[in-house]
């Protein structure tokens, strides 16, 4: 019995020693564990995991746990977590204005705040609460621009010429319908079911979105022109009701699967799709990104993107700043953008140009089209993106236009409801 006890004790001690050794020596020093909440459109989650491994090799006192969640969780669950003070230390968010009040000002902890100002400066305002002009909450993991992808093979099969640059939305609608009729494609034009996508068209048609005082004035003549186009396209078969008319509320519905299956002639989406199209379509058919079609006012898309930000409730602000400082440094972020096939949200890199080594020639061409379209963005588009309650506007628009498209309400009723919804939600937000 005594022998058995001794053997058991020896085994326990050996196991304890082994476990201590296998932790790579990390157990020897105090280690801070940080949680990063992350969503992915393409392969950027893998790239981030790889970069974090490298960071941890150089900084053995910090361990970052990458929690990969769906995009829906970022919009619906994360705000509740943050409001309850139970959020992560770092998060990748797209509703920058809406979550700004939960973000940590990294400035006091950064090695070189001037570097951040110089390279991420214009985008920092999107992450700040109104009135704040100095905080540095994070950096852009990607700058996105909305714009169309076209199935070139379908145009060739139909023998229809693709409209050139500066063509109008109406020109594209006519050409896409002609192609779809000839090749029996079910979706001549598909817009993601998203207010953000709609406003690219609306601003091109002259929508101002805000009044002179910067307050939302959503429904104007430009807006109505765009809404009428969408409404008419659904009735004439240019757009299928399967996207905009088939779900309720502000539910997002994309047509990326339909585009990848060659069912869509022209797909209005954005630069974040390049990576997955490059990988999944391959040589199945030829696709191209084309400059955003024009309206009477301009040829603007909508800017957007996602930022990696520190969260105010963190107990380790210094460590959070160290992680973000590393990830935002020029070499690291350049690698991140290049491997994820993202338009850079870093001014220095945008000026120098990025070498997308892993991208095919088609993807490289698409990235150039979207990078160039940044210069075409109308001031109203930037203003809407920077407005803290932009999602209130975007959600009201998609919800009500969806009802109009489905035939539940008239366009005039939809306009009244959009204004009412925006007004009511802003009033609710202002109740203190």
């Amino acid at each position: 019995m005594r022998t058995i006890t001794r053997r058991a004790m020896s085994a326990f001690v050996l196991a304890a020693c082994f476990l201590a050794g296998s932790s790579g020596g990390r157990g020897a020093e105090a280690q801070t564990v940080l949680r990063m909440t992350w969503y992915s459109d393409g392969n950027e989650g893998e790239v981030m995991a790889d970069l974090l491994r490298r960071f941890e090799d150089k900084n053995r006192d910090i361990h970052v746990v990458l929690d990969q969640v769906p995009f829906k969780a970022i919009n619906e669950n994360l705000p509740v977590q943050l409001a309850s003070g139970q959020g992560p230390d770092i998060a990748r968010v797209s509703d920058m204005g809406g979550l700004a009040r939960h973000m940590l000002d990294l400035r006091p902890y950064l090695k070189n705040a001037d570097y951040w100002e110089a390279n991420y400066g214009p985008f920092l305002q999107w992450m700040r609460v109104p009135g704040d002009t100095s905080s540095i909450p994070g950096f852009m993991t990607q700058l996105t621009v909305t714009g169309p992808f076209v199935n070139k093979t379908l145009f060739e099969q139909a023998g229809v010429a693709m409209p050139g640059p500066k063509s109008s939305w109406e020109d594209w609608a006519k050409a896409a319908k002609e192609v779809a009729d000839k090749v029996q494609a079910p979706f001549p034009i598909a817009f993601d079911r998203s207010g953000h996508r709609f406003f690219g068209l609306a601003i091109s048609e002259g929508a101002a979105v805000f009044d002179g005082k910067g307050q939302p004035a959503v429904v104007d003549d430009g807006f109505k022109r765009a809404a009428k186009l969408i409404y008419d396209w659904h009735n004439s078969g240019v757009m299928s009701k399967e996207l905009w008319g088939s779900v309720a509320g502000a539910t997002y519905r994309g047509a990326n699967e339909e585009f990848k299956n060659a069912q869509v002639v022209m797909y209005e989406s954005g630069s974040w799709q390049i990576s997955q199209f490059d990988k999944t379509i391959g040589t199945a058919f030829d696709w191209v990104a084309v400059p955003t079609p024009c309206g009477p006012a301009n040829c603007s898309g909508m800017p957007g993107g996602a930022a990696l930000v520190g969260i105010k409730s963190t107990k380790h602000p210094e460590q959070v700043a160290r992680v973000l400082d590393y990830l935002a440094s020029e070499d690291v972020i350049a690698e991140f953008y290049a491997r994820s096939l993202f338009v850079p949200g870093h001014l220095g890199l945008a000026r120098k140009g990025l070498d997308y080594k892993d991208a095919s020639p088609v993807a490289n061409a698409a990235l150039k089209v979207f990078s160039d379209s940044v210069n075409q963005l109308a001031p109203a588009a930037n203003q809407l993106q920077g407005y803290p309650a932009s999602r209130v506007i975007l959600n009201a628009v998609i919800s009500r236009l969806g009802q109009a498209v489905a035939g539940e309400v008239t366009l005039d009723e939809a306009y009244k409801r959009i204004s009412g919804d925006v007004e009511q939600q802003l009033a609710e937000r202002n109740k203190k």
Partner: protein
Amino acid sequence: MTDLPTGIEPQAAPTASLLARLRRAGGTAFGAVLGALLRLVDRPMRLLQQLVGERRMAYVFLLPNLVFFSLFVFVPLAIDLVFSFTGGESLFPSQRPYVGTDQYAYLFDCGSFFDPASCRVDHFWRGVANTLRFTIFQLVSMVTFSLVTALVLNMPIRGRGFFRAVYFFPVLLSPVVVALVWKWILQRDGLLNAGLTMIGGQKILFFVDPGWAMFWSVFVSVWAHMGFYTLILLAGLQAIPADLYEAAQMDATPRWRVLWRITLPLLWPNLIVVIVLALIRGVQTFDEVFVLTGGGPGTATLMIVQYIYETAFASQVQNFGLAAAASIVLGVVLFLLTLAQLSRTRSAS
């Protein structure tokens, strides 16, 4: 040791007999350990009984469950009620401004309750109308199909056990899985449309037409849950004394009359349970329909619970106050339905 009240003495015998049986069955070791554990509990329980009295012991046994029930039902209910009288978008009740009955007034601000378009919160009232429509169709279909299936499965047919399992199987599936499977069947390039085109028909866009979307929402719900209600009715059918049927057979009573005069009246208590459960389930419907149709087309299949969820969580301004008021209204409706169930069950018994 003080004498125990006479009421508990007869319970000592079953305990002893249980211990004796355990010892015999499991040898000695296991029975002895269990016996020691039971004795360990026995003494404090006797003491407790002496303290609180025999009559109050029932409450002692109910207490643990009551604590958990209060924690996860009554406390959230109270918080929900508090939220419904507050506004703003803060999460903590202490940071939310009191707005009285504003949320309820806003919710009930309607030109006509029969026309959702005349209401300020038209989505809520569209949800009410859709939920009502869904509940009625679902209830009638559910009760009819469950009853017919139970009657058939109660007959001496071949493979009866197999069919009972088949009809019950969908109940075991997660509602989200059920909805996804049916979505793949019903979508543009799904199985059903493939079948339709194969026989020379045209594809039907089921999720674009409001009528089809509601039909499939009801169909999928009935398909998924019918097995459960069939089981309840089957148990009721098997409890009907066989001699009643034998007597009817001797009198040469027609089969429809047997169904009408014997089976249905004796099955009535079970039918009441099925009706009320299906009714409550219909009013609470969310997951299946949300995954299947997303509430569309337009708002044709938007249910009240989806409205509550989206108002509270999917909007940028998370309007917890309005969502809480809507959920209190839904709770009141469910409470009234439950009261109706209780009163019907009492009168039936």
